[in-house]
């Protein structure tokens, strides 16, 4: 009994020190003591972020072989390569918390780990590649800029680097849309159609309204998250609506209007039924994305085994 009390006391002390450190604005580093719940929250969030980068390679990769010019192909290849690189940094950041990349991939395959639901939507035309860069990366940046000051050091440093690259992607996506809006009638229709299909799912990327978001409070208290879902969503809407207007795209929201008093755009209701339906596995490409990842992973098993066997052989020789 005495021992339990002592342990409880030690736990309370640990939590107190930890929270003081957070409140001072110090970064938490891998070897620092941290509450289990903090560690678990970070593993969940960072691995989800890493999986999103990797699964996101699928809808974009869908257009690599059909990119319409050599320049467009180079930009798209470089972008997808960046996304894969972000996946790598993030897996490494999560590994500092005591989980391996293999374990994270297993959790993804078993459905226990998630990835951003936006990648369950298909890229149907070349304009979708523009819209993904502009809207999806644009939404991701708003979130990631905020995460640059997240409390966990390795995550925060990964975000600083990732943000630099994402801002290129966002501009390149916007350039595709702008070019198409200056192009033929068919191109303009393609661009508007991509906007119509991807606008609402992009707003959903920020997650449920603050009043409905279950994990926000701990994440805010521990400064993993620095701004709420609704704050970030609003920031994204405000900057993107203006960009759409400049190139002549219509935002598919009849309730959208500038609110002079608030200094923000008001927007129409988000279809949360669709959000939860897709999050829970019933979107256009959920099955396809996961089947693809599992198939490729399994097909590559013999390569990974061979590399490991070769490494061991060489180690034994030395």
């Amino acid at each position, binding site marked *: 009994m005495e021992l339990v009390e002592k342990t409880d006391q030690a736990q309370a002390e640990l939590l107190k020190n930890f929270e003081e450190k957070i409140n001072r604005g110090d970064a938490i580093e891998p070897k620092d003591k941290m509450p289990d719940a903090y560690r678990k929250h970070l593993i969940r969030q960072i691995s989800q972020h890493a999986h999103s980068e990797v699964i996101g390679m699928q809808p974009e990769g869908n257009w690599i072989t059909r990119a319409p010019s*050599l320049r467009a192909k180079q930009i798209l290849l470089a972008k997808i390569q960046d996304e894969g690189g972000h996946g*790598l940094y993030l897996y490494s950041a999560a590994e500092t918390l005591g989980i391996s990349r293999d374990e994270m991939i297993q959790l993804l395959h078993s459905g226990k780990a998630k990835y951003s639901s936006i990648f369950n939507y298909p890229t149907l035309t070349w304009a979708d590649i523009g819209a993904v860069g502009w809207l999806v990366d644009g939404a991701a940046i708003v979130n990631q800029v905020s995460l640059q000051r997240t409390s966990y050091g390795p995550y925060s440093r990964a975000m600083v680097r990732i943000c630099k690259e994402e801002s290129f992607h966002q501009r390149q996506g916007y350039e595709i849309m702008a070019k198409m809006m200056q192009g033929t009638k068919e191109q303009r229709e393609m661009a508007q159609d991509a906007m119509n299909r991807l606008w609402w799912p992009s707003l959903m990327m920020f997650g449920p309204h603050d009043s409905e978001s279950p994990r926000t409070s701990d994440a805010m208290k521990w400064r993993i998250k620095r701004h709420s879902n609704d704050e970030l969503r609003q920031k994204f809407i405000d900057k993107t609506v203006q960009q759409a207007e400049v190139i002549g795209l219509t935002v598919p929201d009849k309730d959208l209007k500038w609110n002079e008093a608030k200094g923000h755009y008001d927007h129409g209701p988000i279809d949360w039924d669709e959000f939860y339906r897709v999050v829970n596995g019933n979107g256009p490409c959920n099955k396809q994305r996961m089947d693809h990842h599992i198939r490729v992973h399994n097909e590559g098993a013999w390569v990974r085994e061979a590399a490991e066997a070769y490494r061991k052989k060489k180690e034994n020789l030395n």
Partner: protein
Amino acid sequence: MNQQQALYKYCVGLGDDALIQSYRLSEWCRNAPILEEDLALTNFALDMTGRAQVLLSYAGKVEGAGRTDDDLAYRRAERQFYNHLIMELPNGDFAFTMARLLFTATYEYYFFTELKNSADHDLAAVAAKTVKEVKYHMAHATDWVLRLGDGTEESHNRMQKAVNELWMYTHELFATDPDVAMLRDGNIAVDLAVVKSAWLQFISRTLTEATLAVPADGYQQTGGAAGIHTEHMGHILSEMQYLQRAYPDATW
């Protein structure tokens, strides 16, 4: 064929090799056995697309008919492509792709090392840049051929099968014709005999180290220089050129 036409064809052939090989490698993006390979192969595809862009743009200039790099990549028909057949073969498994990359990158390394001395300054400049890039492609492929050749029984068998299947497409890399001979006389084109001997030496050594057998020479496939391709080529072009062909008035 006059010298200008021969030079156009020479540059287009080099550009097509890069373009088509890049197409195949880029198909690995999101399909590789580990994430690091998704990145590596995408990165090589990116190098090659850049090389294709410079070479096709130069070919357009040599031709003098106002065609751009994109016109040449996206608006030519199959019979006007001059890449080597080995570049267009489907990827197969990872062993097949790595064996091919070893063969082509080693060829390119020695080829562009020679082309650095070309009397054509534009080609010499492209060669100087390309040698640095393909050195990495070659090193990467060599590492994988060693790992897979001398890894597990399965990987060894897959690698040997790949090497055997690809062998009949390798000799075309060193085949010369009267047009190339004309450019050789002007010190523009590379002496392929020099490239072949360096290639064969490196490949034999690498395959042997990887515990793989060097195949015996048998029937050899050729046709790229005459624009006669495998059946795979038409499918590459129908996919690659889709948007440019479907929306001829659009700019992207």
